[in-house]
Every structure is written in C-alpha cells, then in structure tokens.
C-alpha cells in the first residue's frame, strides 16, 4: 500500500514538473517566437473598437482565410470619441480592446495614454523603416515608443475637374497645371481670373478650410516647441492666405464636411478639391455619379507641396491577453503582402514598403472617375516624395479645433482681417491652453 502511494506520488510529481517545464517552455517560446508565423489552426479571439467597417471586414476576412479559427469581436465607435472611450476605460479599470485604433486628430494624446505596447521593443521588434518615412512622426509617442502602424497610406494632393480646368485654365494636363501653380499666390491670381471669367459661378476650391488643410500642414513646422505655441511662425501665413483666398473669391463659402460641401463634388462649380487616397471612395464616388462615365477628374500635386491627410493606426493594448495573436494580426494587416492585397481590394494602399517590392502591381490604383490616370503611381511617385510631415504634439487637437473656430469666423465675417484672426487665435489659445506661452 505504502509503495503504491509512493509510486502515485512520484508519478504525480513527475507529471507536475513536466507540465511546469512545458508551461515554461511554452511561455519562453511564445516570448521569442513573435517574428515567425502562427500555426494555421491557431485558436483565439481578438477585440477591437473602431469606425471603419469596410477596412475591418476586408482585413478580418482575409486574416480568417489564413487563420480560420481566430474570432473577432468588433464594437463600433465614433472616431471622435476615441480619447474619451480609452480614458474612461483606463480610469474605471474596465477592459480595453486587444487591438487599439488611433485616429490622427487625437492621436498625440491617445498615444500618451499608458495602454500601448511598444511595437519597436521586444518581443515585437518592429523596424519602423519597414514603412514609408513620411508616416514615422505619426507612429511614435513622446517617449519614442511605436504605439501603432498606419492601416493604410494617406497621401493627399489636389483633385481637379478636367472639364473646368480646360475651360477656365486652358489645360487639363496635370504637369502644366502643376507648373501653373507653384505657390498659393499664383493660385490666388489665377483664381481671381476664373471667378471673373465665370461671372462669379466658378471657384477654385469649396471653402477656406479646404485650402487651410494644405497650407497649415505642408511646411512640416511643429505648432508647439518647448512649451511655446508658435502662432506667428507656424500659423500666421496660413491665416493671411485664408483672408486673401476669401477676399478674392478664390474659395467658395462652403463649410468642410457639411452636406453642401459633399454635394459640391458633383455640382461642377469648383475646379479643385483636396484629395487623399480615401477621398475618392468617400467624397467623389458617392457624390458625382456622372463622373463614372465621363472620367472627368484628375489628380495633381498641390501648390507648395503635398500633405499626409488623416489616417488611423492599429496597435496592441497592454491588457491584451493574447499579444502573440494580436501582433500576428497587426503584422498581417499593416506589413504583409496578403494584407496589402486585402487593402487594395477596397481601394487603399498599404504603408509598408516590402509588399510593393514583392508585388509591384500593388502600387496600381485606378478609378473610372479619374479616367486612365494611374492614381497609385501618382500617389506613390509624385505626391509622397513631396510630403513634409509635421511632428505631433500633445495639444495639437486643441490648436486644430481653435483653428477651425477661426476659419468659421473668417468664413462668416468677411470684414475680419488676418490681424483680427491672429489676435483671436492667440486669445482663444491663451484661454484653452493657459499653461503654454503663445508666441
């Protein structure tokens, strides 16, 4: 009896030790094995909160073709609520999503929250040079940690109506138009002529905000440096140009993202419009049905350079229980060729370089609305090299919102001068951000 008990105890002990060792081995190997691929029958569940259903569906469908046993739980969230949702989850100790999304508008603040895995560190070891350089400043927080990777490229140039350009500017050739508008001053001069020639019917752009979006971003100057908001250095010119654009009727009075603004893409009253990769499916296609058959749109570089406009990163939250699986998904969606193909199927371009080397045809992007123009080549070879990315600052979202306030005021009050606008901007910033010096 005693011997039997001893035997049983010995077996149990051996089993326990073996399990422990195996467990240890699994943990160690899991920690070291993030660079490889997961077995195809891997099982697990990933949670996400997001706003781009098209991207989510295309990407998870493609991922499930490779890993059919992985499940996803998706909670729709408005992109404007990102900061609030993450903050409240952290403060109350409730569960964060495994895969965290971050929209560009509030990203600087969201990346400072203590919720992100550093993707450049162990065990992920993501090399930031795997993605396009102009996206780098928008992927890191103030400590230099990579908190997410862009889920697509967002370069932006100007879309133009070929028919209107031919009629009012004398050409619809992209290169000739780019040569015609080396600066915003040249754009204003020509815009005055167009307005007069059309009897006040045609404007160059829909509103002040459309020009502002480019002017503010294209010189790559930081808005905040060492606790000082650089109003004069970084923002004064954009407000002066805004007044000139308005006073000379180069821009119409439409407020960006209003119903009238969306409808304007199909009305043929504005020659140009800001155009990022996502503008084509979101702004042009749904509002200009005629354009599908006529192909009357073209894409060119903006005066004084192009910009990176918008964008969403995906990263891994610290509370994620299966970080190995989460990294597999992030890698798949942002860095892999399969992910790039899934992205192409919904009309977007990946931010990783390698997929383009492996499959150069991934660079191709076209739309019936743009006739036979190779949009992929235009974005990748002409627009991207011409982008200077502005570094992110913690309170950029507040400055951005205040600039919107001034733009609205300039749009509504035609007597408001650039000096008035700068004064109001300074006053507003001093009220909203009293801890900074406004210069």
């Amino acid at each position: 009896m005693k011997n039997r008990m001893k035997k049983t105890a010995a077996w149990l002990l051996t089993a326990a030790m073996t399990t422990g060792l195996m467990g240890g081995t699994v943990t160690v190997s899991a920690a070291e094995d993030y660079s490889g691929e997961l077995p195809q029958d891997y099982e697990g569940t990933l949670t996400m909160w997001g706003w781009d259903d098209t991207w989510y569906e295309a990407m998870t469908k493609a991922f499930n073709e490779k890993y059919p046993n992985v499940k996803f739980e998706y909670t729709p969230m408005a992109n404007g609520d990102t900061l609030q949702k993450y903050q409240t989850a952290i403060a109350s100790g409730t569960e964060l999503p495994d895969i965290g999304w971050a929209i560009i508008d509030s990203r600087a603040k969201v990346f400072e929250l203590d919720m992100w895995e550093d993707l450049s560190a162990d065990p992920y070891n993501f090399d930031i040079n795997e993605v396009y350089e102009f996206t780098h400043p928008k992927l890191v927080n103030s400590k230099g940690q990579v908190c997410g990777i862009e889920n697509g490229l967002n370069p932006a140039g100007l879309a133009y109506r070929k028919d209107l350009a031919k009629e009012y500017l004398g050409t619809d050739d992209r290169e000739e138009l780019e040569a015609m508008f080396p600066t915003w001053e040249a754009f204003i001069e020509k815009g005055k002529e167009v307005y007069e020639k059309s009897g006040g019917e045609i404007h160059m752009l829909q509103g002040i905000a459309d020009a502002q979006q480019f002017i503010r971003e294209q010189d790559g100057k930081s808005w905040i440096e060492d606790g000082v908001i650089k109003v004069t250095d970084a923002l004064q010119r954009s407000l002066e140009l805004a007044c000139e654009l308005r006073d000379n009727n180069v821009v119409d009075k439409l407020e960006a993202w209003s119903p009238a603004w969306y409808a304007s893409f199909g009305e043929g009253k504005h020659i140009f419009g800001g155009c990022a990769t996502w503008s084509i499916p979101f702004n042009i296609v749904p509002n200009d049905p005629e354009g599908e058959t006529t192909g009357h749109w073209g894409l060119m570089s903006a005066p004084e350079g192009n910009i990176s406009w918008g964008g969403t990163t995906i990263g891994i939250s610290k509370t994620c229980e299966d970080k190995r699986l989460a990294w597999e998904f992030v890698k798949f969606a942002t860095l892999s060729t399969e992910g790039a193909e899934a992205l192409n199927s919904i009309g977007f371009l990946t931010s990783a370089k390698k997929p383009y080397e492996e499959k150069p045809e991934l660079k191709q992007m076209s739309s019936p609305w743009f006739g036979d123009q190779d949009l992929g080549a235009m974005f990748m070879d002409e627009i991207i090299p011409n982008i200077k990315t502005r570094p992110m600052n913690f309170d950029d979202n507040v400055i951005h919102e205040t600039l919107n306030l001034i733009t609205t005021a300039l749009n509504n009050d035609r007597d408001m001068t650039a000096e008035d606008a700068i004064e109001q901007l300074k006053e507003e910033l001093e009220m909203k951000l009293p801890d900074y010096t406004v210069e």
Partner: protein
Amino acid sequence: MQRPFCTQNSEKVEEKTVKRTKKTLTKWPVIFLAPYFIFYFMFFVYPTLYSFFISLTDWDTVMGVANRKLIGFANYLRVFTKDKLFFKAMGNTFLFMIIYIPILILGGIALAVLLYKLTKTRRLFQTINILPYITTPVAIGMIFSFMFDWSTGIINNVLMKSGIIEEGINWLGGEATARLVVIFLIVWKNLGYYLLIYLAALSTVPEDISEAAMVDGANKWQVFWKITFPYLRPITIFLVLTSIISGFQLFDEPYLLFSNINSVLGGPGRSCMTAMMYFFDQTFKSSTKLGYGAAVSYTIFVIILVVSGIVSKIVNKKED
C-alpha cells in the same frame, strides 16, 4: 396560587410576543429599505464623494492613477482665476435659461388654457405637442442641423422661395443666429412637457369658484389672473426650479447641433458652449485632466445649488 402563575405565564407570553414583534419590526424594514440605501450609496453618495476627492487631485489620465497627488483647492482656484472659458460657458448657459424658461412657462400655460376646454381634438393636440419631447435628442440635433444648413437647409429654401430673404442666412455660422436656433430647438422640444403638466394642474382648479366669479361679473381675463393663475402657482414654482436645474445641465441639443467633423465645440465663437459641454470637453474630449474636470463639475454643482436656493427663497417669500 394559580392566578399569579397564570399572570406570570401570560406576562412571559406577552413579553415574548413583544420581543418577536420588535424583532420582526426591526428586521423587515431594514431588509426592504436596504436595497434602496445600498444603491443610493453605490451610485450617488460614493461617486459624489469620490468625484470631490478627485477634484482635489492633479489626476491626469496620461500620468496614470498611481501618480496622482493631492493638490488641495488648486483646481478650484484655477477655475475661478484663470479659466475665462468656464465663465463664458456659464454666461451662455444663463443667457439660454433667461430666454427659454419664460417662453416655456408662458407658452405652456397659454397652450394648456387653449386646449383645456377642447373636447374632441384635445388628445390629438396633446399628442402632437408631446412628440418632440419623446424624440431622441440625437435625432433632433441632426434634423435641426440639416434644416438650418446654410445652403441646403429647408428653412432658407422656404424663406427664399417666399421672398422674405434674398440670400440664405448662415444660421449655424453666426453667433446670434446659432443661439436663436438652440433656443428654438429647446422650446420646440420641451413645450409639450410644460403643456402636459399645466393641463394636469388646470384640472385641480375648482370650477365652482370660477363660475361664481363669472356670475359676480368677472370677465374671462380676470378669472384667469385672479383665480386660475394662483392655483397654478405651486406647479409653476416646481417647473421653474426643475427648469433651472436642467438648464444648467443643458448638453445634448447644442452639442449635437455642432457635431460635424470640422465643427467647433459650442459653435461659432463658442456662443452655444454650455457649462456641461465645457466640463465634458475639459475632462474627456480635448483634455485628459480628470482632476480639473471634476473641479469644474463641482463648481457647476455648487452654482446650481446656490441659484436654486435663491430662486426658491424668492418664490417662497412672495408666496408668504
């Protein structure tokens, strides 16, 4: 000898019954009341006290809960000495209340008096008026932002087609017009509620007094001011006080009216930014300062308390 035994016995029985009753009485009220008090403590007392504690800290979500420290009344000092936007938001809130509360009270009474005597169509009008009140604020905000859109809104189209204006008015772009739209929205949404309350109150006014007054030669106007209106006084006090409290909490309608991607918090020139919107923005939207946000919310709470107290005192004094 039997008797004392009996008495002793019955006394014991009585004592036992009293004890049992006492036990029963002490146990059941506690059991029945406990859930209320537990939930009241969990969802009101504790959060109220905890948010006051938060307001005394420099808690910022970025810095994390572990690094927060007590800073006394520094947040409150900042609210009162440095924060001009807080005062602007409070000013907007007061302005809205001063305009829309009298409109709602007088409009509610007028509509109720008009509908009270109707027999056949009263229910129909009642239902029509209450519909906006039961509609979700999100839908109302969106509908109004479309209706008052500068170039595509139905209001400008109707005004232009009827020749009242030549060019569309930028309702949501100008400070004064944006405020007008917010006030119109609040009145349109809430008038039905005031109407219902006043209709209920009118049914408590004894008709024989009014009839006697009419017999004595009083006209309808005199009957309304001298008899009906005094009977409505307690309801009016209730409505004024609850309107003030809800007025300080005004958030949904102006927030949703300006919720486009590029819209500014509180509309043009922050003319429609209310105290609650400012609290929300400072705590969650554009900032991560939970401690400061809690101080802003406590300041609003104290202001509501003081204003409601003053109004209640004034009204009660008049009643005395």
